């Protein structure tokens, strides 16, 4: 790992000012930045340590929303009784991510900024072509081993998948990312690769994430995060779904449903087409199975990741039927 300078920020303003400087990168839990620095992908000249800042690790919840500070640890949110009660999909997405040690280190703000696990992106020594690392250099993944690559939201420049779990739940429940005074809907915070895969977030230099808020809703309260993967634990999703469901008083007609996918797309992937197809309908298995196929509209595989096109609708179906008490 290349050497760097260490700056311990004493205030959020100092962190903003420092992080706007060339070569400066914000360091929180370290689980992404130090990993990528060891890979030679991140090359900070100065790391700006924000973990000693106070007042950014709150977890507050009331009848209308939850507010989670950017420095709250994944484990603290996953284990928080009120989050588990009002936003089970959010708590589950965190509990099923990474390992117990990493969840104790990684922060909510840093979690949103984690980078793709594309092995071509991560291996600069062997693969020089990566538009995310070096714009214009090409994409070594296209034509390579693509089992973990995205089938939705890709471009000719990049087929990397977004690896996170939390953001999938946040996108499903219309969370807001707070960058100081500026607020960005979680769905808009993550950018499609298009021709500029190096730009991953709606985020300017000199901004830091300060908190995330999630509106409370009956669908968020009755929600789940289903994660299917190659091994049972400590693994990224092959396909995952954050689903929330609210019935009409009849207990069978869908009043509100939220669905977002992980592990299959270049960003956390809200699937409003399925939501629209199910709202107002009586929930029953054949309907759900058919509607779930809509999540793969426009999907493009690159060989080894073709299985995701079959898998994701099944994951959606299982999660919806479980929530609806139909499985």
């Amino acid at each position, binding site marked *: 790992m290349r050497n760097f300078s260490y*700056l311990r920020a004493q205030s959020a303003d100092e962190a903003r000012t420092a992080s706007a400087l060339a070569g400066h990168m914000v*360091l929180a839990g370290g689980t992404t930045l130090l990993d990528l620095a060891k890979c030679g992908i991140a090359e900070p000249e100065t790391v700006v340590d924000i*973990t000693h800042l106070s007042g950014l690790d709150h977890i507050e919840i009331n009848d209308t929303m939850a507010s989670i500070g950017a420095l709250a640890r994944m484990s603290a949110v996953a284990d928080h009784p009120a989050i588990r009660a009002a936003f089970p999909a959010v708590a589950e997405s965190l509990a099923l991510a990474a390992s*117990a*040690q990493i969840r104790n*280190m990684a922060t909510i703000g840093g979690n949103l900024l984690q980078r793709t696990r594309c092995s071509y992106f991560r291996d600069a020594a062997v693969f020089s072509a990566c538009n995310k690392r070096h714009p214009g250099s090409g994409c070594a993944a296209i034509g390579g081993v693509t089992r973990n690559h995205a089938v939705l939201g890709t471009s000719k420049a990049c087929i990397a998948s977004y690896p996170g779990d939390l953001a999938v739940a946040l996108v499903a429940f219309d969370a807001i990312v707070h960058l100081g005074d500026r607020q960005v809907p979680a769905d808009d915070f993550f950018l499609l690769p298009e021709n500029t895969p190096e730009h991953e977030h709606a985020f300017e230099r000199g901004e830091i994430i300060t908190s995330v808020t999630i509106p409370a809703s009956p669908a968020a309260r009755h929600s789940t995060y289903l994660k299917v993967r190659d091994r049972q*634990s400590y693994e990224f999703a092959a396909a995952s779904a954050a689903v929330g469901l609210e019935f009409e008083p009849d207990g069978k007609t869908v009043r509100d449903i939220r669905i977002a996918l992980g592990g299959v797309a270049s960003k956390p992937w809200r699937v409003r087409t399925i939501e629209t197809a199910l709202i107002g309908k009586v929930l029953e298995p054949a309907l759900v199975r058919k509607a779930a196929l809509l999540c793969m509209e426009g999907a493009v595989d690159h060989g080894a990741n073709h299985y995701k096109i079959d898998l994701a609708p099944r994951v959606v179906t299982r999660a919806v039927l479980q929530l609806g008490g139909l499985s």
Partner: protein
Amino acid sequence: MTGTLNLKLDINGESRDVAVEPRVTLLDALREHLGLTGTKKGCDQGQCGACTVHIDGQRVLACLTLAAQAEGRAITTIEGLADPNGALHPVQSAFLEHDAFQCGYCTPGQIMSAVACIREGHTKSDNEIREYMSGNLCRCGAYSHIVAAVREAAEATS
């Protein structure tokens, strides 16, 4: 802030001075600068858990923590686990009794992780133990004995 950082680290209840480059991880500070080689370097990338230590009582990976970030926090390593009179920690004894290792390289990390896992209360079933110990890999495959050791130590301390 370039060059060398002079840090004061609280390790196993002792204040230790160490002078390191900013990039030095807590793992390398422990092993290369402070002679505490019980904490192991496996993958050095946050994937194997061999470097698990406790910071302020919580299990973390020393390979992805800068030494500078650990300043002012209470660090516990495998060397600080046994009683000062030499009596082993109950989890250490359980690992011996259940033969919960083969080569032993992952063992300090497994034990540090298990102590925290028990303290967190994530030992209500074998499946829960497996889930909450999944960040510690054992290439010898001693998993079934590790689960048995954690289960017994959890029962002994409850």
